[in-house]
């Protein structure tokens, strides 16, 4: 039977006799009411919002609204790039006002998904109540003329009508159909889990939104750079950057601390993947809470450290050259391992050293190169990410660092407005550079640093449960078919019984043909002279 015919029959039955297994396709959102006052308009607005067509439009809007989030740099993922974009492009200010650098936290994005979720709730909650009733309703009685239905078989049974009905009911019950037996007919229905799955899926999406909200309200995420030999204590002041949720209480930070004993990175050597990272490990000594015994643990990529519901992830690394500055009398005025920011895959890193205790104040800027090379085009750069041949290239500046006027300053930027340049030099480990005024700068060596992200997301379990429920619901709603089967008996010639078996499904492009066939052949055999045994195979 062709699908058009099936559609026609379905539609006719769906509207006329209510046999259809699908919810009625009522779509009265298109026409506005006339002269029914405020309540009427509100009802119309609510019906419009909760209609499938509106949901469809909102889905489209949601997809389109996400696009700029992948085109423009986002504050949430890459704030440095946003700053760069704003500095490069004067039109960026307008993009910023439109929220293009924070799409997923912008009011208009929120407006779309909140409308979508309201529309969803308005559609799904009434449908759940309806389905709750439908689940306990009896299958609709057999229609008078089963031959009108898309799947229909007429067979002959030798048993009396009542026995045929009994065995039909038994056959269907053993296959877990919901069965009603009437005087001369049997009605059965199956596949309620289709609508159950559909509703579970949509309700799970609401739960997922709740999980996301819980996480962004009560969670936090912080980043910290730790040099080898240095320690980190999990308190607010120790983080380099910290993004708490609105409802997050800093006092609830887990009181652990750790020391980075050793960081090691392995890279591919040779071949087309030369320099590609192969292994990162950070060995730390962890103290879970003040007074607890220290323990040695290893943090790797994909292997975060879990402490009291907070996770510590290894997210980056780099080099910190150890620089010593002595005044002209040989007194140490500065000695530290300075974190340098990696600029490329080979860890050409930019360094800034501020020496406020020198007089006059001294500033150094330049590069740390793990595997040093110099050429005319690129200047000093690194050719491999591991420290095979480390060197620093530093310029020295003398004057006022500008630290005393109270303005906050980035530790990664030297304010050279009130300084004069003394010169530039390259140093290998152990080498020193004597400045014109007699001060010396020594490159003692380097340590590696690792950057860690510490995060807690109290909503993630909710989100996971919601996702699994959504997927299970989706699978049920798309793979289960809801269908109805009827059997009608009438006494035939010579003590036989004429049996009509018919089925109906509204699930898209599904068929009950096989089940109707199976039931028919269980109940009797085809009348001798007819060709009804040519079973319909619509595919």
């Amino acid at each position, binding site marked *: *039977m*062709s699908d058009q015919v099936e559609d026609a029959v379905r539609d006719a039955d769906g509207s006329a006799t209510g046999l259809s297994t699908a919810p009625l396709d009522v779509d009265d959102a298109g026409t506005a009411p006339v002269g029914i006052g405020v309540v009427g308009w509100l009802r119309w607005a609510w019906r419009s919002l909760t209609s*499938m067509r509106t949901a469809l439009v909102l889905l489209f809007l949601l997809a389109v609204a996400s696009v700029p989030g992948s085109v423009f740099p986002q504050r949430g993922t890459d704030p440095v790039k946003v700053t760069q974009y704003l500095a490069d492009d004067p039109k960026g200010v307008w993009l910023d006002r439109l929220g293009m650098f924070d799409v997923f936290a912008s009011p208009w994005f929120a407006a779309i998904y909140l409308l979508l979720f309201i529309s969803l709730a308005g559609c799904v909650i009434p449908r759940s109540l309806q389905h709750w009733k439908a689940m306990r309703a009896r299958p609709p009685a057999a229609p008078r003329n089963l031959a009108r239905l898309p799947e229909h078989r007429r067979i002959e049974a030798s048993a009396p009508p009542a026995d045929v009905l009994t065995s039909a009911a038994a056959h269907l019950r053993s296959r877990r159909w919901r069965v009603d037996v009437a005087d001369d007919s049997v009605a059965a229905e199956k596949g309620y889990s289709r609508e159950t799955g559909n509703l579970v899926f949509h309700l799970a999406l609401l739960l997922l939104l709740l999980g996301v909200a819980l996480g962004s309200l009560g969670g936090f995420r912080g980043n910290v750079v730790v040099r080898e030999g240095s320690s980190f204590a999990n308190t607010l002041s120790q983080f380099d950057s910290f993004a708490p949720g609105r409802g997050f209480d800093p006092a609830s930070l887990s009181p652990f601390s750790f020391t980075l004993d050793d960081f090691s990175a392995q890279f591919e050597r040779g071949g087309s993947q030369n320099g590609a990272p192969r292994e990162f490990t950070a060995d730390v000594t962890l103290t879970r809470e003040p007074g607890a015994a220290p323990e040695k643990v290893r943090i790797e990529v994909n292997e975060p450290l879990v402490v009291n519901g907070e996770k510590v992830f290894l997210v980056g690394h780099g080099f910190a050259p150890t620089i010593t500055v002595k005044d002209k009398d040989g007194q140490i005025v500065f000695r530290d391992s300075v974190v340098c920011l990696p600029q490329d895959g080979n860890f050409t890193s930019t360094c800034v050293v501020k020496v406020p205790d020198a007089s006059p104040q001294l500033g150094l800027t330049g590069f740390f190169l793990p595997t040093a090379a110099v050429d005319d085009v690129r200047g000093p750069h690194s050719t491999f990410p591991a420290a095979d041949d480390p060197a620093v290239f530093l310029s020295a500046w003398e004057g006022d660092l500008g630290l005393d006027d109270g303005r906050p300053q980035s530790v990664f930027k030297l304010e050279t407005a009130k300084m004069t340049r003394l010169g530039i030099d390259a140093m290998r480990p152990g080498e020193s550079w004597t400045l014109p005024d007699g001060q010396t700068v020594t490159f003692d060596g380097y340590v590696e640093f690792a950057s860690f992200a510490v995060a807690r997301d109290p909503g993630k379990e909710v989100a996971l449960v919601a996702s699994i429920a959504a997927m299970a619901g989706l699978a049920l709603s*798309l793979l289960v078919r809801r269908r109805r089967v009827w059997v009608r008996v009438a006494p035939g010639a010579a003590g036989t019984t004429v049996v009509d078996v018919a089925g109906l499904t509204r699930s898209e492009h599904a068929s009950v043909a096989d089940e109707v066939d199976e039931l028919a052949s269980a109940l009797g055999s085809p009348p001798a002279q007819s060709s009804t045994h040519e079973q319909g195979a619509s595919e």
Partner: protein
Amino acid sequence: MTVNLAFAELSRDLVYAAMAVYTIAMFTFAVSFAATKGRDLVPATAGASGAGAAEGGVAVATRTEVALGGPDDGALPPGRRSANIAMAITWLGTILLAGGLLFRGLSVMRAPWGNMYEFSITSALAIAATFLLISLKRDVRWLGLFVLPTVLLILGLAVTVLYVEAAQLVPALRNYWLVIHVSAATVCAGAFSLGAALSALFLVADSAEKRAAEGRSYWLSGLAKRLPESTKLDGMAYRIHAFMFPLWTFTIIAGAIWAENAWGRYWGWDPKETWAFITWVGYAAYLHARATAGWKGRKAAYIAFVAYGCFVFNYFGVNILMSGLHSYGGLR
């Protein structure tokens, strides 16, 4: 860990061999397609299949005799023999391609899903395998002419533009979630490609049938009459999409679980994640459109295209054009 160069080379040879075999299969399918007589775009007697119902008698749907074939050679309709040969060649090509993928994996002793070359040959294999699996249950020989060019195009891109030497993975990818997340994603890639192809064929067949009913000509009617009815194509496209949508959802969830483990957040609106979300919304819109009055049929098929476009962009565009955490295509 080192790379077994002999295996890597064998893998490459097998992929090239598969491409050669697929090319032969494609031409054989083309010969078969051209030889097929085709059907009437306008049903000879309107509603013939529904006649039983109209008469108030017994609904009868006869299985087309062609599908059953026959033991005697003379009974084979035109184009059937070459189609059978093409199917056999496609099986051979798919076995070779599977071998190529297997040895690629063995050469580095990991699941071969670390860069775009490896994803691409896996997707090509997924498309061919899906086609062959469907062919075990249904007569989809007519589809071969559309599946094989797709497979060859993907393999061609893989061995030329996307090729990278076999190598170990960067640490972020070294996780069993890679196997789960990426294998699901590549199966989706294969099946969504088939779904898009079927939607395109549905549009062609639908246009041809409508014009034929109005007595107008259509430049693609020669193609359309060798295809199944438009409703059947639409149904197949729907079934593939409906079956794949939960798997795509799973792919995203598996990715989120992995992301939580690697980066400390399960969702961060990285470009790849954003486009995976857009694709998901696109296919959700397709499924909703099919249940919405006024959006069934052609409009729904267009939505499926847009969603597929997003999927393809997520694969090629995001890896090549955008920088993010997923930029490990291996291309520099």
